[in-house]
């Protein structure tokens, strides 16, 4: 702040408050909707204040589910989502650390070729090649399995890219010192590189956890068995009822529950999250 202008300060806060309202409003509305009964929506307008049926709606979704909409209890789907998000995050981090290490610290034939094979996947979401990928997973017999749910999503290079950028900033002197001490490549990797990457790994974990959690189309296609449903795809099942009134209050309860874990992760690990996000991309 260079000068002090009260009206500008006021205006700044006003802009921010309006921004926060825009961001929070849809979710507030969803929360309000999830605390009413279904009948409250037939009157033709959504209430703006919370109702009295929060406990009832949430416990119904968490513990009973709506079997006819193909939705098992939500706690089960949330467990699945957690499992899948964690597997994706860990899997990606492990394979990326190794391959980034190889690409940065070694020279070998076909290095450039391997580099491009991996990096061509950098921005290609699974949606784009959805049908052939589905066919491959189906042929491998991986439908309805955690492997089928996670492996194809692990196959992208975002994390590799981050580690490569980070490894390039590691001073050469560290490595020279390690070699003088007679440390082999794996020892150097374990004792020096991994500890140095700790924060990056944690930050990336947050980002990848969210990435895994919000997956929608892929789980929708590869799971036919409700035991493998994730919460994000389960919601769609609830919202898309053909011959009946969508039960908005329950759909919104499910939506709030599906948002909660990753949002809490972002809020409570904000520093890591910001670091992970901004550094992954830069």
């Amino acid at each position: 702040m260079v000068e002090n202008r009260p009206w500008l300060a006021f205006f700044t806060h006003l802009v921010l408050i309006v921004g926060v309202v825009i961001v929070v409003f849809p979710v507030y509305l969803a929360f309000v909707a999830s605390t009413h009964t279904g009948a409250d929506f037939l009157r033709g307008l959504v209430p703006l204040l919370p109702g009295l049926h929060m406990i009832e709606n949430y416990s119904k979704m968490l513990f009973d589910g709506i079997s006819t909409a193909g939705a098992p209890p939500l706690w089960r789907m949330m467990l699945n989502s957690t499992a899948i998000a964690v597997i994706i995050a860990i899997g990606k981090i492990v394979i990326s650390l190794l391959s980034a290490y190889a690409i940065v610290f070694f020279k070998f034939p076909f290095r450039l070729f391997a580099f491009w094979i991996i990096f061509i996947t950098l921005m290609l979401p699974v949606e784009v090649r959805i049908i052939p990928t589905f066919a491959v997973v189906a042929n491998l017999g991986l439908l309805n399995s955690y492997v089928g749910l996670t492996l194809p999503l692990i196959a992208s290079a975002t994390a590799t890219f981050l580690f490569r950028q980070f490894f390039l900033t590691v001073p050469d002197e560290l490595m020279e010192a390690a070699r003088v001490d007679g440390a082999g490549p794996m020892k150097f990797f374990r004792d020096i590189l991994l500890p140095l990457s700790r924060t990056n790994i944690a930050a990336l974990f947050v980002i990848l956890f969210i990435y895994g959690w919000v997956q929608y189309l892929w789980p929708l296609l590869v799971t036919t068995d409700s035991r493998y449903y994730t919460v994000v795809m389960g919601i769609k099942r609830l919202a898309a009822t053909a011959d009946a009134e969508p039960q908005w209050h329950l759909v919104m309860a499910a939506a709030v529950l599906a948002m909660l874990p990753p949002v809490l992760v972002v809020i409570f690990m904000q520093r890591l999250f910001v670091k992970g996000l901004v550094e992954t991309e830069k």
Partner: protein
Amino acid sequence: MQTKRTIFPNRVLPYFLLLPQLAVTLVFFIWPALQAVKSSFEREDPFGFRTTFIWLDNYTRLFAEAGYINSLSRTAVFAVLVTLLSMSLSLILAVAVNRVLRTNRIYTTLLVWPYAVAPVVVGILWWFIFNPTIGILPYMMRSVGIAWNPRVNGDHAMILVIVAASWKQISYNFLFFVAGLQSVPQSLTEAAAIDGAGPFKRFWTIVFPLLSPTTFFLLIVNINYAMFDTFGIIDATTSGGPNQATNVLVYKVYADGFLGLNIGSSAAQSVILMLIVIALTAIQFRFIERRVQY
């Protein structure tokens, strides 16, 4: 390509290190991609009993099809508007947060969490808000005489998906703009202030040009996001309708292949999308390689 001055002399080890990622990439990315290329030259019945090689038929028919041309233009409109709307809002918020000192952590926390909301949930939230029968916004619009109907009116449907997609992307852009603003040297703005430039003039003449690398980076990322990561939003709101008004490329691949069972055409669309993504990635990459200083 960047590398280290000193490197390990091992010959075999790097291949082992690369093996997991290469294997996963080959099986779940390269192989399906090749499959897509292969079936884009074929006609096949849904059950896969009969397959005929038909050269470029799928492609020529695609570009002769009004629906595909429509989808291309809709995607362009959607991507450009989402990028503009989301980035301009985020920039305003980032500049504002950069000006407040004591409360900026609180504001940041309140603004960044939509990043973690799944696109399909975003779609459901906005569908609910914009629902002609029970939504709050149509209710307000009715009172000022706007007949809001995304079921029939393609423009309304487009507005709906643009708003939903932009909302989700605000937090991402915001964080990058904040990071960009923090790297603008204080001394420059102070010098300009001494020369008598007001805050707005300072922003346009000094800060904004210095943000251009961030802005360019975000442009690419946002276009990429709008084109490929918004599947869930579209699916939960308009399903590409009405009359294909919101049938963007990535949704069309799915709708033609999975719902329409038209595997050849869907594969051809996949191939085209992959080329677009690879081009975007290449641009992004050149840019990053140029910018990063070691």
